[in-house]
Structures are given as structure tokens and as C-alpha cells.
């Protein structure tokens, strides 16, 4: 059976598939970086390594009919939600197989089959838009919810505060998921924010909040599932702060020289993939050969994806004139 984004999404009910997907995100970003280094791709990209347990955990916790907005650091969310690697990579490389045919690039992914609105290259912009999707659910009386995924840096922009306030006064079914990956662009978040826990900002809006260990997918799935169902059942919006870590610099050009010595290494000790793999083995859910198989499976899938993408044609001139206007 050919995988679709929806079938890949539904597969995440299985914990080994969650491990597989986290490994996929990790490896996908390595491949992406290599394609840039090889000169196959131009422009820039923002990788999600280190945040896999948050992003795959979210995908395993909400329904494909729920709406998600996320940022330009979106490869992990997109793959997590189910998008096919060749479709994400195709967009990053700028080929017709890409999610929008190569006219968007790394920062602009979209797949409405799994609820992903076009990802946002403007910090914070997706936060009120998710509230708007929740507004639709409320007006139409459906039980869909919306999720805004954003970073610590976005909690300092007006859109965050305005969206939280409006969502709160209107009791919108929206989950605000802050991935606190410690860095907003090139700045450590304590240099730009006075509060240690960003979740405390919810109290200004009379909104409940929760802090979650973002490096443990069993924890994220439990927490996100519980919060999503509370939101769905009409308890109003929630702000979740997932404590995580951005393994790379802000973008391709940033080698993150500003990181304190030893910080990255200490986060690596709690690497979400290693931690989860070790637990699955300790539980007897997986054994070492099984883990090796997961890694081989992912590598083969990504080899195939790269081959498919590189064989995919460049978009023609006409494609830049398509979809500029609706119904024209």
C-alpha cells in the first residue's frame, strides 16, 4: 500500500512508529543540511533536531481533522503530522513534487489532509490564525480544535498576547503549544524574557497552562492528549510550554557559537530518540536488532525520497502564475 500523509499520521498510534518518525525527522534534517552543503538547494533552512518528541508527540495526540499552524522551523511538525518525506524535501529543494510545487521552499509547507495550514515564516503570525481556526469550530459547532506551534521567541511578539487574550475571552478551542527550545534566533531566551517559565504568561489572560518535558515522547503524548481533550470538551484554551532544545543554530548560516559550553552536551544526555529507544528496549517492546531495523528502514526511505526529489522536474514558468488568486 502506498503511504499517504493520512496513513502515516494514523500509524502514530503505535509507539514504534513514533520512534521511527522521530528518527526520520532527525535523519531528514541531516540529509537536508547535506543537500545544502552539496549546493543542491539554495536559500536557507531551519532544522528541528532535538525537538522530535514534541512534534511527533503532538501528531500522535490530536486528530487529522484538527488544524495546526506552525513556524518556519516546520520540517519536524510536517513530517510528524504525516507529510511524506519526498513532498517536504521536494518543497525544500524547489521541485514540482514539493507540497506546493516548489514555489514556497523550506519555510512554506502545507497539507490540509492532515490539518496543516501553510507554515509561517513570520514569527508569531500563526498564533492568532490558529485561534481563527478554533473560531470556525466554535461558530460551526464542530468538535475540531486548533493548535498553534511556536517557539519561545514568539512569546515576545504582540500576536502571541493578542491571540491568547482573544482566545481566552471567547473560550476558543485552541491549544497554544510553545516549544521552548531555549533560543529565539541567535539569542538565549533569558536575555529576551524575564520569566523563567513561559507558561506563566497564560495567567495574564486567565488561561490555564502546563509545563511539559519536551524530550520524552511518552510524556508529551500523555500531556498533549489530555489537554487536547480538555480543549475539545469545551474547557477553553490552554498554553503549554514544552521544554526542549534546538540542536542546531537558528538557520543554516548559524553555527551557534553563543551557546554556553557544555549546554548542548547536557541536553544530548536526554536525547529524545535515545531515551525512547532505550525505554522501548528495556520494556521489551523492541530489541537491538529491531532498533537497527528502524534505522535502516528510515535510511532507505530517505534515500528513496532524495532520489525521487532529484528526479522530479523543476517547476515551469507557468507555475508562478498559478494560485495567486482564487477562482480566476
Amino acid at each position: 500500500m502506498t503511504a499517504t500523509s493520512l496513513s502515516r499520521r494514523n500509524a502514530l498510534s503505535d509507539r514504534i512508529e513514533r520512534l521511527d518518525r522521530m528518527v526520520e525527522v532527525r535523519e531528514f534534517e541531516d540529509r537536508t543540511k547535506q543537500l545544502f552543503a552539496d549546493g543542491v538547494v539554495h536559500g536557507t533552512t531551519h532544522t528541528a533536531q532535538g525537538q522530535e518528541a514534541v512534534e511527533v508527540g503532538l501528531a500522535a495526540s490530536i486528530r487529522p481533522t484538527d488544524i495546526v499552524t506552525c513556524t518556519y522551523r516546520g520540517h519536524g511538525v510536517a513530517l510528524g503530522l504525516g507529510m511524506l518525506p519526498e513532498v517536504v524535501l521536494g518543497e525544500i529543494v524547489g521541485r514540482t513534487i514539493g507540497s506546493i510545487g516548489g514555489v514556497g521552499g523550506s519555510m512554506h509547507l502545507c497539507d490540509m489532509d492532515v490539518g496543516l495550514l501553510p507554515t509561517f515564516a513570520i514569527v508569531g503570525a500563526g498564533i492568532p490564525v490558529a485561534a481563527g481556526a478554533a473560531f470556525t469550530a466554535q461558530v460551526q459547532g464542530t468538535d475540531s480544535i486548533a493548535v498553534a506551534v511556536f517557539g519561545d521567541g514568539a512569546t515576545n511578539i504582540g500576536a502571541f498576547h493578542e491571540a491568547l487574550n482573544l482566545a481566552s475571552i471567547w473560550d476558543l478551542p485552541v491549544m497554544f503549544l510553545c516549544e521552548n527550545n531555549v533560543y529565539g534566533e541567535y539569542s538565549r531566551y533569558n536575555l529576551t524574557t524575564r520569566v523563567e517559565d513561559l507558561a506563566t504568561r497564560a495567567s495574564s489572560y486567565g488561561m490555564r497552562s502546563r509545563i511539559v518535558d519536551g524530550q520524552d515522547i511518552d510524556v508529551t503524548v500523555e500531556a498533549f492528549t489530555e489537554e487536547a481533550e480538555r480543549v475539545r470538551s469545551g474547557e477553553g484554551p490552554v498554553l503549554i510550554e514544552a521544554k526542549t532544545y534546538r540542536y542546531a543554530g537558528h538557520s543554516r548560516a548559524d553555527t551557534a557559537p553563543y551557546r554556553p559550553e557544555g549546554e548542548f552536551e547536557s541536553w544530548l544526555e536526554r536525547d529524545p530518540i535515545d531515551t525512547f529507544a532505550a525505554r522501548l528496549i528495556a520494556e521489551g517492546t523492541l530489541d537491538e536488532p529491531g532498533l537497527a531495523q528502524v534505522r535502516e528502514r528510515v535510511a532507505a526511505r530517505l534515500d528513496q525520497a532524495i532520489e525521487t526529489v532529484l528526479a522530479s522536474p523543476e517547476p515551469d514558468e507557468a507555475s508562478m502564475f498559478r494560485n495567486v488568486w482564487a477562482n480566476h
Partner: protein
Amino acid sequence: MPKARMRQAIVAALADEMRADPTVVVFGEDVAVAEGPFKTSEGLLEEFGPLRVRDTSISEMGFMGIAVGAAATGLRPVAEIMFIEFLGVALDQLTTEAAYFHYLSGGKVRVPLTMRASVGAGLGFGLQHSRTLEHWLTGTSGLKVVSPSDPQTAYGLLRSAIRDDNPVAVLEPRALYGERGEFVPGDEGIVPLGVARVAAEGDDVTIVTLGQTTSIVLGALGSASWTADVIDLCTLVPWDRVGVLESVSRTRRLVVVEQSPWSGGWGTDIVAAVTAELFGELVAPPIRITCPDVPVPFNPVLEARFLPNAEEIIRQVDELIGTGKRPKPWWERRTS
């Protein structure tokens, strides 16, 4: 034909669309309980209830974003920006998100949102509440821009805007909200987007107007020694090239009357396009009658001087026809 004030025509358009389509919702600052600072949502809360008619906090960035998300997922939101200047803090959502969502989704997502904003000078609101700011919006592919000039166009353009599957900015001249005029309600009263309205017909010159300048030009015709085609653009993006070119190819003179600054005003596009297309056929240089490149002054005498007026229009067109040369705008004739 019934007469109504422009603000009442707007209420009628909103109510008609809300009755016809349950996905139409209205929100903005003080639009529900207070029925709008310009009374453009009178009775809507009562008829349609608090789920579909809502007051927002003073959060333009937030509620424009909500409009984008709502439009992308199945509603037809009408978001009111009280004064167009307030769009400054929310511009991202309109020009960088709403306008591009269709493109960025490979055509899968539509954003049928309507942004209504009051625009323009003449009411003594001071320089931060008196601009028209079309040029903030006109350079973005994927975003339509319209501006009504009377109750009929206010009604008909708004209904078309709400029905359109693209984001549409509706710029309502606030000085006209209280103006009365005849208007046809119902489906016959719908004004299609992208089609200019011939507000007067004549032979000597084509005068292109938008919004508030339309009635000023029409008012000037009575004391003019020439006759003019007055083309009320109604839609600025996409503007009616066919209609304008057809008229100018007949009159061979083009005057654009704008309530915009000399620099960057929307008329530059019209003049450039017409000049390129009809260069050899024109008997005079196309000109623009605009506001000067200064902030909108508060003092009533100065504010009136700032705006294009009938006397200046007559003088400019007289000179253009008489000399075939570009007349100096009033601020270039100043001696003090």
C-alpha cells in the same frame, strides 16, 4: 428607489449576506453592542446573535489573524478596522498571510475574508486618523482592494467582497457615512469587483476617481466649461483597465483625482498604464490631482485646502485643455 445614508447601506449589505450565508460573521472593536463607531453594524447583534457578531479587544493583529484562520477553515469573516491607520499593527495578517495562503497551499486553501476600514480626511480627526493608505495594500498579489463612493457602491461592493473567495480590503470614506443617496438593495444592487462605474459621460476629458473624490468631481462638473467621462474605479485591485482605456482613447485626456499623497498615490499606476498604452493618441499629458506630500493638517481651513476640491479640479482641467501642458498643483503655485 429608496434613499439611505451610506452607513445604512453598509448595514444592509452585511445583514443581507449574513441572512444568505450562515458562514458570514462580523467582528471588530465595538461593532456588536455599540453597533460600530460609525453605526455600520446597527442591529446585527440583535438579529444574528453573539456567536456571529462579536466585539473584540483592541487587538487588530490578533483579530485580523483570527479572521485569516477563520476564513481559511470555512467562514466568511468581515473584520472591521475602525480607522485604516490601525491596520498598521495588523498589516502582516492581511498582506503577508491572507493574501498568500491560497498560493502557499497550492490552491487548496481559500481566504474569503473582508477587511472593512474607514478612510480619509475631512472630519477633523487629525493626521493619525485621516489617511486613505491604499498604497499599503495595492502592491500585494492575492489581495483585492475596493472603495465605495456612495450608498449604492458601498452596498454592492461590500456584498461582492464578502462573496469573493479572495481577501478583499474595503476602504470606506468615513466622510461619506452620513451622506444620503438612492440605492437598490437586493441582488440587483450588487456591484461586481473589477468593473469601474461610469458616473458621468462627456467628451473632453476622462476623469478617474475613487471613493471620496467621485462626488467632488461630479460636483465640479456643473460649473465646468468642458464635459467629462467620470470613471469611478470602485475596485482599485484589480482596476478596470478596459473601461479606463476605452474612455481615454475617446477623450484623449486623462486626469486622475485622488485623495492620496502626490508620491506613491494609486493614480501613478493608472497614469503609467494609460500613457504606455495610448501615448501617441493623447493630446495632453495625463495628470494627477492629489493631496500634497504633507501630513493631514487639523485646522479646518487647512484640511479643506489639503483635499482636492471642485475649484482646483476646474482650474487644473481648464489649464490642461487650454495649454496641453501639465498645470502646476496648488502647492507649487504658493507664494508664501
